[in-house]
Structure formats: C-alpha cells, structure tokens
C-alpha cells in the first residue's frame, strides 16, 4: 500500500502527510510517521529545524489486522491536528481509539476486555481511565471537515449518554427536546436528565444502600472535574449500571429514581 492510499484510509490530510509507513512483522505493528512534507513549501517557509519539533506517539485503531502506532512530528508553534488519527498531547491513544475505548467502558466492559479488543496494555488503559476520572485528561475531540477521516475504520461512534450541553462528537439532547421518560417501571434511559441531576447533586434522594452512597460520592467528584461530555457520559453509564446490577438490594433508591424520572 502506498502512502497516498494509507493517507486516505487514515484520514491524513493537508498540511499533514505520511512521511513513512513500516510494518513490523514480529510485533504485528504498523508504524506510521506523520509530519509536514519534508519538501513542501510550508516546511521551507517555516524553516522548521529538529529543535522546533515536538514528537507525539499515539496508539490508533488497527489497520488491516495490524496494530497501528502513529508518530507525529509537529512544529512547536502549530496546534495538534484535530484528526481521528491524532490525540491529546498527554494521551497515549488517538482520538478515534479513545472514543472506542469510552464506548466499551461505558457499556460496562472490563479493562481486560477493552485491552484485549484493542490489543493494548491493560495497565495503560487503567492509567488512562484514572486520568479521565481525575480530570487530568479529556476525551473530547472536535472533528472538522479537513480532519475528518475517509474510512469507517477511523470514524468512531459517539458515547451515548448525553443530556448535557451539545458536543460536536456526541449525541446531545436539544434543549427543545422533551426529556426521555422512564418507560413504565423500567430504569430511566441513560439519556434521561435525572442521572446528571444526581451526579451534579442538584437532585438528592434518600440513599441507605452503602454501595450506592460510596459510588455516588466518587462519581460526583469525577463528574465535577471531568473535562468533557464524553467523560461525563461515562459516569452516567456507570451510575446506571450500578442500578441495573443492584436492583434487588438498592430497591428503595431505584424506586425513588424511577418516580422522579416520571
């Protein structure tokens, strides 16, 4: 596969280009080196030296059965690209991989499953989740037309538990929309605003179940420091998952949630 095809597959677009791409057969790894074109007018115009380059490395979604590692050489005075293949400066994962990780975590997948699905180190996933939980890193990613990838493989679906402010990469509930209602006797859907009210502390219920008390206290702290909607959505899903799993022991609390959601 030539670089132009790979650029199309990964969604690498101007001013960035693939400088090299190599397959490490032993590691089942595709190493993609991205930067400004070495002979391009932009590079010459900017007179970029090696000293003026920051190098970032992110794990990205797999390509053709291979793990994919992106190395970006970015001039210090240029912002990081808002592209699926790029990531935040303090994240080990690309935006696209981050979104996929969040979807699985939000659906209650264990770290072992998540790391197995994406063939990433479980410790790395755990550290990443801790940094999300403590607000040290965000999961948000704003796609722009120029950065939009050209393949399905590079276009992650959003984390869907949003009823908060609109976010470009998430399913948001318009302020004109009626809030989703709890279906007769069922736990309110993740999109229902009641979960966020509980997590912000704007709504309180009488909680006597110790597990829920401790979990909610932790989630409220994490929700308050979360950097973006996707991370907050993850907290919503975690709280709702507790209620689903503990319907027999947190009965009175869940009944209150259902009643308030009506």
């Amino acid at each position, binding site marked *: 596969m030539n670089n132009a095809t790979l650029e199309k597959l990964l969604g690498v677009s101007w001013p960035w280009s693939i400088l090299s791409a190599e397959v490490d057969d032993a590691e089942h790894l595709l190493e993609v080196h991205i930067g400004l074109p070495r002979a391009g007018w932009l590079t010459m115009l900017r007179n970029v030296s090696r000293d003026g380059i920051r190098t970032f490395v992110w794990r990205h979604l797999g390509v053709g059965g291979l793990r994919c590692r992106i190395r970006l050489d970015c001039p210090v005075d240029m912002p990081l690209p808002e592209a699926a293949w790029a990531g935040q400066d303090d994240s080990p994962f690309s935006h696209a991989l981050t979104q996929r990780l969040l979807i699985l975590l939000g659906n209650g997948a264990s770290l*072992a499953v998540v790391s197995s699905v994406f063939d990433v180190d479980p410790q790395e996933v755990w550290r990443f989740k*801790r940094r999300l939980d403590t607000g040290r890193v965000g999961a948000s990613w704003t796609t722009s037309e120029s950065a939009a990838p050209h393949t399905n493989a590079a276009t992650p679906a959003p984390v869907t538990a949003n009823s908060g402010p609109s976010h470009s990469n998430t399913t948001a509930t318009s302020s004109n929309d009626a809030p989703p209602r709890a279906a007769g006797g069922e736990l309110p859907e993740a999109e229902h605003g009641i979960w966020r009210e509980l997590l912000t502390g704007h709504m309180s219920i009488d*909680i006597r179940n110790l597990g829920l008390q*401790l979990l909610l206290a932790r989630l409220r702290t994490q929700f308050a420091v979360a950097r973006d909607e996707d991370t907050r959505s993850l907290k919503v899903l975690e709280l709702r998952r507790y209620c689903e799993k503990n319907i027999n022991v947190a009965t009175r609390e869940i009944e209150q949630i259902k009643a308030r959601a009506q």
Partner: protein
Amino acid sequence: MTTGKGRVPGQLMSVEVASEYIRSGRVMCIAGDERALRKLPRGRWIGGTICYFISADGGVTSQDEVFVDLLPADCGEPKLRFYDVSTISKLCIDGPDNGFSLVVMPAFAPIHLQFAQHAPNYEDMYMKPLVGWVAGVHMSELGTLTPKAVFGPTGEFSELNAVAIHVPLPETRSASVAIVNLFQPGEGAVIRFPRSGFNASDVLIDNQPHNLARYLSESGINIQLPLVADYCGAHINVAIRAADAQKGEVDFYGPVFEGVDYRFANPVSSYADAFREMAPKEAVPAAFSCNCILNYLYGNLEGHSTGTLYGPVTFGEIAYQLVNQTLVYLRVD
C-alpha cells in the same frame, strides 16, 4: 451451630469443633490466634490472625478458640484465591455477578496500604458486595509477631498476601454490605487535606491553612475520636494513630482523601450501649460481621455485650473500601 442450610451467627468455638466443620466440607471464614489456626486442617476456608472477638457473651480475648463464620450452605461453588500487590486490584472483577466476596489481608503489609489507598478506584468497585477484615495480633505481641492471612486449601500463612473467597448466590438471593458507625460528624471545623495519604501536616481548617497536629494540641481534641466524612449519607471514619505537635505530624490508621471534607466526631458515652441501640434488629443473622480493635479498646468492650452482630475484632474493616472504627456486616437475603 448446625451444618445444614439454616443460617446462624458466627461463633467462637474450639479448634476441635472448627476442624469438624472444615472436614464436613463447609465453606467458612475463620479468625484466630496464629497458634490456634495452625492446628486446623486444610479445607475450604480462608482466615486471618486475631485473638479479639465479639461473641454472644460480649467482647472476649482468646488465644485458644477460633471464630467461625459458616458461609451460606446453598451458595454455588466458591472460588478461593490469593492476591498479591500486583493482583489485588482485580479483587472486585473476580467477584460473582450475584453473590459476594470476602477478603482478609495482613495489617501493615504493603497490600494493606495498597488496598487502603487505591481500593475506591479498583475496577468494578462498589458494583458487587465486598466485605472483609484486616488481620492483627495480640497487642502485647505487636512487633514480635506479624499479622497473617491464611489460605485454607493449602494451609499457607502469609504476612504479605491477601486471601479472598468469592461466593456466588442463587438468583433468588442477594447480598448487601452495611455498617454500624457510632460516630457522627461534630459541629467543629471542616478539615481538608491537600493530598491523600496515611499522614498529614499542613491542612485547611475551615479554609485556613493550619498545622493539624498543632491544631489538635491547641484545641484539646480527643484523638480517640475519628475524623468523619460524609459520602452521600454514609459516615466513613478515619482514625488517628498518633499526633506529634512538635514535629507537626499526624498519622492515621487509614488514608485520608484529598478533596473530602472531614470533621471530628462527637463523643460517644458508652460504646457498648450505642452498639446495642444501633445494631440491626433483624431476625436473620448476619452472614458475616467484624468490629474494630479501636472500638474494642477505647470502648472497653471486653466482657460487654454489643448486640447480635458477632465476629472478629480487627485491625481494619472492609466495607467495599477500608474503614476504621466501624462495625461491618454482610446480609444475605
């Protein structure tokens, strides 16, 4: 105590009787002095060292008898496991989807400190019931003997590793964890810590920077009273181990957490009376219970009845996370 399916509270018993239960194949958690535990046969049990107990006769110290909690007879096949510092974070995900996990770990070991500080962030924490206790030794043997966790299937005693039993329950039954905390947060100053840990020096007291050890000395606060934090209605204690005003340092039995508001507890006039009053008045006995050595010592519980929750008196209690100066119990409905 019967060997049938009927649930009975845990009991203090001789090594010989406990051995019979082990040989009968029952799944159990056993607390006792190391010398007594070493006389027990191998089998489907986990345990830990301690020689203080709350029994039907009240608080008692015994280095000859052992305290046995028979786990529900109608549970599924339990999994008994060892955990070290590198695997303890998987404790919760190893728990059954419906059931509970019971863990015992040795006091002062790195795994105790690891669990104390990081358990709230373990994967699946709070999602499934987790109870347990921290093994200790007779107070006169502190420094000469080490607390140990015991893995019944192999008879191994460990001063480093934790042991756990994961007990699945039938769909018709469910387990839940609860606590009895005698301490209510007082009306005093709100204390905030700049970082999580087992010790502190400079803190925020009512939003003003202050040295905690000197504040304790100046205010004449009784350090037998724990700091209490409110976790969405659950009062969680952190007990003070030592306060040195000259060095300006305070050590805790459990970690304080950054960003949490703490207050010193109101005094309790009679621990035994308060426990009897606050203990649940349920017909079905708890499947497991433990109480804190500090309650035992500060509340002078030896020889005094504290209600119907019986169990080992421990160097730390686990109700999901590590708690201090608290009675923890497990209900199986």
